[in-house]
């Protein structure tokens, strides 16, 4: 149970960081919409799970937040990437690309290449 949640949280955290990197400061709903557009699955039913992850990232110092006016003229919490977050994202991107490349090569390998 716990492990699965952690994996999902980790993926979600990375998506959040990337979203903020691309869009600049944006509120929770905006992040949710963006993630939903790109990957329908992760947040299809549970948009709310985003918020504990946002809090975690903020407490780690990867993102910062402040109140600001939203589109419908109400108060919304806007999130933005910090320097620390940008560093984290770069490192994570590199890791991710490396992993993806390795896994990719594995899938390309055919039986005759191994003999």
């Amino acid at each position, binding site marked *: 149970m716990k492990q699965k949640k952690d994996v999902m949280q980790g993926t979600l955290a990375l998506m959040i960081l990337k979203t903020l990197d691309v869009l600049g400061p944006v509120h*929770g709903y905006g992040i949710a919409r963006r993630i939903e557009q790109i990957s329908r699955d992760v947040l299809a039913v*549970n948009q*709310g*799970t985003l918020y*504990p992850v946002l809090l975690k990232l903020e407490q780690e110092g990867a993102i910062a937040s402040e109140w600001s006016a*939203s589109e419908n003229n109400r*108060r919304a*919490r806007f999130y933005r990437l910090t320097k620390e977050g940008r560093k984290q994202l770069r490192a994570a991107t590199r890791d991710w690309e490396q992993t993806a490349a390795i896994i990719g090569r594995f899938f390309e390998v055919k039986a005759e290449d191994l003999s």
Partner: protein
Amino acid sequence: MSFVKRFLARLTNFLAWQPNDERMNEEIEEHIAQQTTEYLRAGLSPEEARRQARLKFGAAESIKEDYRDERGLPLLDNLLQDLRYGLRTLRKSPGFTAIAIFTLALGIGANTAIFSFVYGVLLAPLPYHDASQLVVLNETTPRVGTVSVSYPNFIDWRAQSHSFSEMAYVEQMSFNLAGATVSQPENIQGDSVSPNFLSIMGVHPFLGRDFVPAEGNSGTPRVLLLGYQLWQSHFGSDSNVVGRSIALDGNDFVIVGVLPPNYRSLDKIDVMLPLGVWTTNNTDTANRGNRGDSTVVGRLAPGASLAQARAEMEGIASRLAKEYPEDNDQFGVQLRQIRDVFVGNLRAEILVLFAAVMFVLLIASANVANLFLVRGAARTKEIALRMAFGASRSRIIRQLLTESFVLAFLGGALGLAFAFAGIHLIARLIPQDTLMGATIGLNGAVLLFTAGVVVLAAFVFGMAPAVHWAKRDVQGELKEGGRTSSVGAAQNRLRGFLAVAEISLALVLLAGAGLMLKSLYRLIKVNPGFQTDRVLTMEMYLSSQRYSKDPAVLNFWRQVLDGVRALPGVESAALGNHIPLTDSHGRTDITIEGMALPKPGGFPHPDTHTVSSDYIRTLGMVLERGRTFTDTDNQTSPEVALVNDKLARQFWPNDDPIGKRFMWGRFNPASKTPPKWVTVVGVVGDTKMYGLANPSRLEVYAPAEQNAESDMDLLVKSRLDPSALTSEIRGVVAAVDKDQPIFAIATMNKIVSDGVSAPRLILVLLGLFSLLAVILAAIGIYGVISYSVAQRTHEIGVRMTLGAQRADILRLVLGQGGKIALIGIVIGMVAAFALTRLMSGLLFSVSAGDPATFAAVAALLVLVALFACYIPARRAIRVDPMIALRYE
């Protein structure tokens, strides 16, 4: 590093402790509002848009819970929450809480109190350097057992052994202390020790210096170390005491130091002297056959084990026995670790009590577990509801365990108070010397133990309800209103099991108490051979300075006896040098006239008493034949003696012992001087000199007028309370010699009572523990049956409607209780049979598996169990079938 930052942020939030959900709520609100707007734009009805938005957001409450967990420290958060919740629920049911805490406090308190003795006597480190290497050595002889060590033998042991790095001789002495330092003359005890004694023990004087080697030699200047207490009481803790002097037996001793406050001595001592003081002008030091009041302490050499040392010493002892048969024939050697000497037979006694209190604690825990289960049944709905609202199973169990811990903690706190009172009570009930200077109290080690007991108890009674909830079908609970039959059955089984356990544990305790009761009863029924009522005893020791000549000694005793006899209220007064049951004794070899001469170690070796003419009458002993001493048995008349029944029957089984003769010491056919025969003039009954539980020995009584003794006990039989005579007797003695101390003042009743204080205390405690156990077990079985009756009200109603008679219902309910009781008793019997064996060493003329005792305690428990079931059974037969059937 981000982990640290995150932890710090969480900790800050946790400590700030504001359940600030505002930001979260507002964000969620805004999120759902935006999503709703989106759906409205897509053409949904406002209601539907809002519903869809909520669905898409997910389970808000669970997300909020995650959010809160993320913000603070959920484990601590929950713990605090559980604690608050636990305290609140406990407050809401004060009856349950009070009973549970009180029950636990009794169990934990009893454990703490007894453990403080376990620690103080068995575990606390001895105040010596590396005490495990210290060995106490004694001589042994088959005729007596353990005896003192003769000085020449000690010299040979020390010279010939290699398994000891050092050995020291310790001779117990007593002195009269009079003069400027004391208001009233008194008698004090001292050890005269080899100069290396304190360094062997690893003890350093608190003030001043240790003895120097030269002080082991005869003719050494008179010096001594003060015991810490004597220093406090007689010298006002004067830090300049070194160099001052103190008069013992009329001789001035220079104080060279003070022993440390925590010094633990094998003998109760007030002063310590160098061995040279004892050896000076002392012919005993050259007499290999003289075994005074001495023992030897040795430190094992590095690498030597006790077993090696024992083997070596046994070899040395048997060589010495062959080399000096006159003095050492059949004498062996005994080696004991110093801890064992201090503990003595307390070990078995304390461990039996410790096992008993553990049982009490288990019963108390089982009882509280039962209470928890009953309450758990009442809380079924509450807990089921909380689970339905998303509280996880583990969260509920944690909550229940927290409640258990809160209870156990409160029980432990109250238990400490009980223990504190209990320790003082127990310490008052045992004679001071029993513990040999062990310190008993609530120290760090004991508190640590108590904490462990609290945790153990919390687990024992907390796990039952927790396990129970872990397996429950919540949905079922809610649907069926908490009366699911399968769950009820499982719970009843668990509670039945607990009740069975309580009964069997209680039976073991009861069996132990029953055996002790029977044993003590038999012990106090033992005929001691003397009558103790209205007899006062006190000791006087005439120091050699003033009373060096026999006439002076005899004159002193005559004057004292005459003075005391003249006191109003005195029925008779007598002198004797060894009072029964005080361990005071003297023994010597005798030769019976005409006996085949045995080897040196095989001569009769009776206890010898020097007594005045009224001794037999004053102590109420039985004169079986012949006569007692009269005033005409004096130094000018032939030597006479009394013997006890055992000696008479052993040596003159077929003849009249009156007129038979024996001589003191061993007959030597080669000797030129004719033997001095002593004539037996009377036979007296055997006495229990060495305790009611120990067999009588051979005894010989000689008249005081023919054997001047400087150390005597005065025995006074009074018409009324004998202790009232104390001050008048003091006056009589002071009139004869104002510097003569009187000590060891006690009534014979007190001496007998102190002699059985250990079994009596064990009986009292075991009795208390088992009473507690039986009450708890009765409550346990009562709880099970009465709960089951309440659950079966409906069923009972149906049965009665179908024609069941009250007797049938009674049988049904009592049968259920009887089954629990019987299983418990059978298990308890088996356990008791195995366990009481461990206490057989404490029992006197009762076997550990005594069938009568076992039958009696089983019957008692059956009665108690039936009575406990009878109350709910009566409720059952009064059930009105009509009401019961509507009881759904």
